[in-house]
């Protein structure tokens, strides 16, 4: 038996590795190893008051801290029966777009791109070819500016609270943001040019199940509470309150991330899943860009997630512009957060973090203190699918060359844009 081990998966967030065991020509075992320490934040929030929960649980992950923070607030608001104002909903959606732009730009340009162009890092790439790295940094900075303007800080936002916001952003700042976003529209074309020019990554084909938040009429990452699972033309709907049916989970010995399946099959969440579940988004400019990227949905190649991120990057810029347009038309109001009346009960919330579905669910006592907390993260949901695609890639590598396999598996892992700090937080408290 021979074994291929990648001790430390670089250019991803967190601590993970890959192990492949071959018996002759047969793939005996593939593992996505997670050796991130378990921080046990979910049991540690037990007993905390409702206003302390989002600031603690946003610390699950820096890259998705907006998603964790706002999903946490939405779950708490659901538990207390609070309905936030339309302005709050728009501002939160805008924060999600900012985070998505930052996260996708970071992933595509600084983490994934060096593989395609045979460089160890974006720093080394920039020494030879600065243009694509500068393009990525520009977009990344724009995403951060949105998060700073609305959320008060790019990492671990502070301005969003249960019931609304501390302070609404000043009109002048929204106008400035709008002009930066308008400049970024031209960058969107460069993104598609660049991604379309990359060498094909044609080494892993597999029938894939996709799951994403369903938003029939609205392009949203934040609003909505239904998940659609798509496979080979079959569709199933799961309501937020029944989210546990998405997480037929088991703890596995090689990983502090639990593994999830839907009716026994692994499924993929993230950009590619979002576009597959909500194809109506792909009109006009996006449809043209999709053709240039030679992306067909539903896709059978996980590497296409990089193309889907590029499409979302330009869509996020346009959606952010729409939201700012609406906020300025309606007039931004200096609203106070809705006063909180705690009550005993459970609230669950589902949103689309940059890497896919994110679920927070809490139970509160009548004083507004947490008695149980549950967080399901996109990378934990993806873990079983990542292993399935590792297996397919090894099977489809005809000569079983170890160096080739190692390179391909790392590229697949990165295409999922895994966030391993998040992955360990698939946790159920009773």
């Amino acid at each position, binding site marked *: 038996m021979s074994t291929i081990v990648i001790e430390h998966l*670089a*250019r*991803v*967030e*967190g601590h993970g590795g890959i192990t492949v065991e071959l018996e002759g020509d047969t793939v005996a075992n593939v593992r996505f190893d997670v*050796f*991130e*320490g*378990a*921080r*046990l*934040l*979910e*049991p*540690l929030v037990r007993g905390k*008051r409702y206003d*302390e929960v989002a*600031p*603690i649980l946003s*610390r*699950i*992950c*820096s*890259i998705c*801290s907006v998603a964790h923070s706002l999903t946490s607030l939405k779950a708490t608001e659901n538990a207390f029966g609070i309905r936030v104002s339309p302005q709050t909903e728009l501002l939160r959606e805008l924060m999600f777009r900012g985070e998505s732009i930052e996260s996708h730009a*970071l992933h595509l340009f*600084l*983490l994934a791109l*060096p593989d395609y162009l045979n460089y*160890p*890092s*974006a*720093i*080394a790439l*920039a020494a030879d070819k600065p243009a694509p*790295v500068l393009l990525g*940094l*520009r977009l*990344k*900075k724009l995403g*951060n500016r949105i998060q700073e303007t609305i959320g*008060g*800080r790019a*990492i*671990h936002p*502070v*301005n969003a*609270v249960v019931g609304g*916001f*501390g*302070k609404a952003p000043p009109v002048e700042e929204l106008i400035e943001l709008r002009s930066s976003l308008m400049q970024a529209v031209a960058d969107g074309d460069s993104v598609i040019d660049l991604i379309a020019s990359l060498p094909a990554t044609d080494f892993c084909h597999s029938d894939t199940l996709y799951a994403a938040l369903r938003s029939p009429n609205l392009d949203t990452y934040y609003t909505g509470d239904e998940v659609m699972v798509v496979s080979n033309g079959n569709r199933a709907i799961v309501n937020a309150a029944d989210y546990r049916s998405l997480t037929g989970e088991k*703890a*596995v*010995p090689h990983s*502090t991330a639990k593994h999830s399946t839907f009716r026994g099959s692994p499924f993929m969440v993230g950009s590619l899943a979002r576009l597959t579940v909500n194809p109506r988004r792909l009109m006009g400019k996006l449809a043209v860009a999709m053709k240039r990227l030679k992306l067909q949905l539903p896709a059978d190649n996980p590497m296409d997630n990089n193309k889907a991120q590029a499409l979302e990057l330009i869509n996020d810029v346009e959606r952010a512009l729409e939201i700012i347009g609406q906020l300025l038309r309606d007039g931004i109001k200096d609203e106070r957060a809705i006063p909180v009346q705690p009550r005993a009960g459970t609230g669950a919330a589902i949103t689309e973090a940059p890497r896919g579905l994110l679920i927070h669910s809490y139970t509160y006592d009548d004083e507004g203190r947490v008695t149980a907390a549950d967080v399901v993260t996109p990378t934990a949901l993806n873990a079983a699918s990542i292993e399935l695609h590792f297996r397919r890639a090894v099977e489809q590598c005809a000569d079983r060359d170890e160096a080739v396999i190692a390179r391909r598996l*790392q590229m697949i892992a990165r295409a999922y844009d895994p966030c391993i*700090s998040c992955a360990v937080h698939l*946790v*159920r*408290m009773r």
Partner: protein
Amino acid sequence: MSKPKVGIFGLTGCAGDQLAILNCEDRLLDLVALIDICDFSMASSHPQRDCALDIAMVEGAVLTMRDARQLRAIRQRSATLVALGTCAVWGGVAAMDRGLDRAKLLEEVYGERGKEYDSCAAQALHEIVKVDHNITGCPIEKEHFLSAVAALLNGDPPLYPEYPVCTECRMRENNCLLIERGEVCCGPITAAGCDARCPQLRIPCVGCRGPVTDANTASALAMFEEKGFDRQRIAARLRTFAPVGVGP
């Protein structure tokens, strides 16, 4: 003269301090012109694992034996070790309530498998190795990272405010959330450097930067009690981000 060799590492945490470094978008390429970042797994797939380092920057807390081994190895190869962010400096959120029975929590979360995981109670870096400088914040302010690099390149120690968030908050002429609105604001004992970001937005300080040097915790607690807040609850709040730094 060859560029100083720098390593950037993450133990257990959210990677927010490494991300804050990557968020120096406008300065990143200037930075790599001044220093040789030779080990930074989050950004590069060809780290030099064995070279001696002039400066090591380490974020996250120690939560596994693997973290502890890695931290000792980093210390051994580095002339200067900088703790990056509240988890590294003060233990951070994973260290709160570290007196709780960890084995029991692990089993509750992961079932029987929990017993097999490499896991220990969260510790700040200084509890394991000697730390030369601290840059606190959850996450760090990216400007503090840049000024620390500049100072260290000049052979100077990085310096940070030795006054509380309250001082910055007053300079911004905010109404006091604690005195005027009766909210639990940790500003009086929390290290400044954030320009009172939260109170500026009418949000009480949660203490994410850890305690200010010589924090007068007793007097702050007395003030909170005077306002009618429960002492135990307040103490728990003060320990959320800086469990290692604040006494019972």
